[in-house]
């Protein structure tokens, strides 16, 4: 009988290089699932939030219901939200995506609407005076001017979504949350810490990426600051 190996895995240490090298594929798969779920949710939320915000701006009566419903959705705790969607989606990745979309909606709609409302009326008038139609006005004047506020919402929504994906572990689609969940049941310290740190890294990286994108898309803001 051979003695059990005396490495950091056997000693169940928090920080363990052997864990990183021996579980590389598992970690990579979890990161990919995490990114996939987040990206899909944010993309869908954007596709729904922009028309909602535009509708709320176009028709005044729509503001109350749109903001009210999205706020109520945001108040529902994440675990309950995923659970409420269970009869609709079953134990599937789409459940996690749907839950995250509902969460992101509040932040996105609020911020896009605030950005659109902050466009100065004189700017709108000037564009109209130059013969801009409503579509061209929206696409080339209003949306670019609303971008900073919208991007602020998008950054918060993305960071929150990265962190909320972990709760998806309850239905087996939690990205790195799956590893945290499994690590909890087996008291596997290295796995829990590594997955948690990776989660934070993904959130920070996504935030920085979006900040860079915002700088790229709004060169005028940069020039003003310089």
């Amino acid at each position, binding site marked *: 009988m051979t003695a059990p190996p005396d490495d950091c895995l056997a000693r169940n240490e928090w920080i363990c290089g052997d864990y990183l090298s021996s579980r590389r594929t598992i970690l990579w798969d979890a990161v990919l699932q995490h990114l996939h779920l987040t990206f899909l949710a944010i993309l869908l939320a954007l596709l729904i939030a922009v028309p909602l915000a535009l509708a709320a701006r176009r028709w005044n009566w729509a503001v109350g219901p749109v903001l009210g419903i999205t706020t109520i959705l945001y108040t529902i*705790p994440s675990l*309950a939200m995923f*659970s409420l969607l*269970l009869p609709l989606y079953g134990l599937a990745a789409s459940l996690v995506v749907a839950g995250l979309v509902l969460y992101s909606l509040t932040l996105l709609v609020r911020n896009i609407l605030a950005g659109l409302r902050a466009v100065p009326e004189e700017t709108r008038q000037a564009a109209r005076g130059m013969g801009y139609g409503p579509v061209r006005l929206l696409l080339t004047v209003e949306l670019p001017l609303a971008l900073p506020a919208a991007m602020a919402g998008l950054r918060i929504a993305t960071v929150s979504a990265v962190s909320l994906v*972990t709760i998806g572990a*309850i239905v087996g689609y939690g990205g790195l949350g799956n590893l*945290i969940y499994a690590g909890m049941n087996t008291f596997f310290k290295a796995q829990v810490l590594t997955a948690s740190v990776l989660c934070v890294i993904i959130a920070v990286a996504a935030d920085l990426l979006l900040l860079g994108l915002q700088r790229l898309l709004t060169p005028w803001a940069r020039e003003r600051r310089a």
Partner: protein
Amino acid sequence: MNTLAAAWSWLTSASNWSGSGGVWNRLGEHLFLTVVCLVISCAIALPVALVLGHLGRGGALAVNISNAGRAVPTFAVLVLLLLTPIGTHGQWPTIIALVLFAIPPLLTNAYVGMRGVDRDVVQAARGMGMTGGQLLRRVEVPLALPLILTGVRIAAVQLVATATIAALVGGGGLGRIITAGFNLADTPQVVAGAVLVAVFALLVEGVFELVRLLGPRWVRGGG
């Protein structure tokens, strides 16, 4: 919609409400966790935020702590605490995690509220010979109160949500009904538990909204 009917019959069956795993008991645990942690986190965060706001220092800290709170998954912190030596001490990992996540909104809102107090008013108070302490208690805090209360409301709702997740790591509260339902593959119970949690969260939000609406004008702000 069979599941909804089954969830309804779960909710209306008296046997699910009594006993140690019953709804009343879980609701009590959830309420207890929320209130205790709200009191602890207010006791920690508000004095710090008020003093920092009064002195006008540490603004970067107050804002960044809020961003950090969003980036760190609640679930990860709960599990990490469970695996530390604290984890063997009953509810303590849950309480610590809950307090950690309630502090950022309290700190940020109270700080922003304090800094938002009209500088002219502060100057006038100083000119009347108020000391720093008097200025803080009698001018700045009353004027910052609407935002401080907003922070408390956000923290309370956050606490309800985090307490629910605590059920995943064996903590008490209404979340246990959901996790038990998942373990039993009992979808109606999962839905019933989720409805209870959602209603509880909305009620907490509603109570704060009511306080805001019925409170004196200086609590409502704007006015």
